[in-house]
């Protein structure tokens, strides 16, 4: 049994209201003047102070009614059988909050360093193991022995360790492919690694022989790695070519040629991807504030970060940073992918890309569908119970004149 909106649980505090009313009614307040006083039976006075059984029932009913209303508002639901997750990846982050998301069957959890320091790796793993029952837990972060406190727990999952030092600052970025709009979102913040989402490219053209991808011979290694990632994904060959100074890459499909231009912008390290027919790509990226379609509401609080890329005008994508290697690779993988899709005319959707390492993990044979829990709303039962209790309360209160 879980709650959809825990914030309404605060309302259960209102269950104190009937108690307060009850005590208020029993307080020794201003006496009621009753000239017919002498007709009151003597024997009843001594019993007046004690709580009678029907009063307790009525009090419990009224408390129960408030609790039920609160539970209705919380969206209480019953969980169905959990399908065990195949794997969970737990990544240490120096962000201030945790994030969870499911990508292609892997549950990824980023845990703040501060929390790991506080509870220790074992405790954390035990909790994740209990909550999700995965077959494999991949743990990535600072694995110093000081951070393993207490006894080794009995874990259901197998463990795989990836030692990694945290860096001061990372790029975290997401391509989000929404139903009705395409948007890009890059955020500069303290985080662990690059968060990427990818969908399997199911629409790779069967006649890939005719699709060609060229990159300039002296391209930046990071840009090149991004293009290599994409060529692997599309199962096409990446060919070096002596392209003009301002051109990074060219995609050819039949008689169609799409060129990716680059213009160095000098000291402020701006990379520009110039769009236009025959010589550029059209990456429909909305401006940053509008584009953020976050899965975790915590990210929205980070809007004040410096934007690192945005659309200048309608079609010009501006990258305002000297990106870290990992980011550059990721970014150009996305651009290259878009280049190929534009060339083939498959669609104009931006499809996010991921690093080779992550893609390997995701495409592993063992990966299964994430254990999304089936939810059965409890609202119908709660509503019926509410109706029943309300009727009982009405009957009891009228009979007892309370």
């Amino acid at each position, binding site marked *: 049994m879980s709650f959809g909106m825990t914030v309404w649980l605060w309302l259960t505090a209102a269950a104190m209201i009937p108690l307060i009313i009850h005590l208020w009614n029993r307080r020794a307040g201003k006496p*009621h003047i009753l*000239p017919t006083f002498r*007709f*009151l039976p003597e024997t009843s006075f001594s019993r*007046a102070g004690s709580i*009678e059984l029907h009063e307790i029932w009525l009090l419990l009913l009224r408390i129960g009614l408030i609790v039920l209303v609160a539970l209705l508002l919380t969206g209480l639901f019953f969980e169905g059988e959990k399908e065990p997750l195949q794997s969970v990846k737990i990544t240490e982050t120096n962000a201030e909050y945790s994030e969870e998301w499911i990508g292609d069957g892997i549950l990824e959890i980023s845990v703040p360093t501060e929390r790991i320091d506080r509870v220790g790796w074992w405790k954390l793993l035990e909790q994740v193991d209990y909550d999700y029952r995965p077959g494999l837990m991949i743990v990535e972060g600072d694995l110093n022995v000081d951070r393993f406190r207490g006894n080794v727990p009995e874990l259901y999952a197998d463990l795989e360790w990836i030692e990694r030092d945290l860096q001061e600052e990372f790029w975290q970025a997401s391509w989000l492919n929404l139903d009705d709009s395409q948007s890009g979102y890059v955020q500069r913040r303290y985080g662990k690694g690059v968060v990427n989402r990818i969908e399997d490219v199911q629409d790779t053209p069967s006649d890939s022989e005719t699709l060609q991808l060229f990159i300039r011979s002296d391209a930046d290694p990071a840009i090149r790695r991004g293009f290599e990632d994409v060529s692997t994904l599309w199962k096409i060959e990446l060919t070096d070519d002596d392209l003009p100074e301002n051109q990074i890459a060219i995609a050819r499909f039949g008689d169609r040629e799409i060129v990716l231009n680059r213009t160095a912008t000098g000291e402020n390290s701006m990379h520009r991807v110039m769009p236009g027919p025959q010589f550029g790509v059209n990456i429909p990226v909305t401006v940053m504030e509008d584009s953020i379609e976050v899965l975790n509401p915590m990210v929205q609080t980070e809007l004040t970060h410096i934007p690192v890329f945005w659309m200048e005008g309608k079609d010009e994508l501006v990258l305002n940073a000297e990106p870290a290697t990992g980011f550059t690779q990721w970014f150009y993988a996305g651009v290259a992918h878009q280049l190929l899709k534009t060339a083939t005319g498959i669609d104009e959707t931006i499809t996010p890309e991921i690093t080779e390492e992550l893609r390997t993990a995701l495409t592993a044979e063992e990966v299964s569908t994430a254990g999304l829990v089936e939810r059965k709303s409890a609202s119908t039962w709660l509503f019926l119970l509410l109706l029943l209790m309300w009727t009982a309360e009405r009957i009891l209160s009228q009979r007892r004149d309370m």
Partner: protein
Amino acid sequence: MKRELPSEIGDLLSGAGLAILAKQIVDGFLIGLHRGTRRGTGTEFSQYRSYQPGDDIRLIDWKMFARSDRYYIKESETETSIIVRFFLDASSSMEYREQELKRIDYSALVIASLATLAHRQGDSVGLHIVHSQNRIDTAPKREKNQLNRLYSILESVECEGTWPETTEWITECTSRHRELWIFCSDMLDDAESWRSIREMGEAFGHEMLFFQILGETEQTLSLNGVTTVQDPESREERTIRAASVKETYLENLNKYLEELEDSLTGRRSVHQIFSMNRPVQDLLRAYLQNRSRL
């Protein structure tokens, strides 16, 4: 549960003067229904009728005989004015309040209205404010200023003590003439003392109306949950659970009311219970019904 109060009670609560209210009530009521006169000898001509054997020959109008050569008796309207004495209970229990309305204020309005009506009918009206500590007597008079005097006294009544335990005082409030005594009280004291009053009144040959004014809560004990109640006269306090004691309470109360009814109902007396939320006109109607018997 609150009931809507009659308009005159609402006006009383909003501070309207007793004199104006009483006049309004009486004006809006049964003016003309009862004239308070009967035919006979008097100053105001009514009609001629033929002489019948047995009529006093002194009543024959000789001038009419001279004109018509027949015997006629000249009838005039004779006034049947009586003395109406009002007895207002001013004991502490009359301070009882329901829906902001005090029993003493309601009773004062009733008496003011009845006095206005009686005065217009030509009766002499007197007032006795009664409680165990003191008594304020206003002798019955017919003069025009009498009503203003009564209004003034009624507006300044202060409640204290209890209803007098003895009944000797009543002998100081009577005359040899025919009188109508009207009592306004909660009558929650000893039924026997009320019986004594009734018997004394009958001994004097007076008519009596006993208006018992009770509150809704007093009659039904419509209190919620656990309540502390206080006797206004003894100041004794007790905590009760109304729902638990209601049955016995009503049993005791009804028993007493039956006993009181028995004590106050006689050949010359009527006992009626009125709730404080009843229109004052109802009491005027009761008054007129009984007044017409005199």
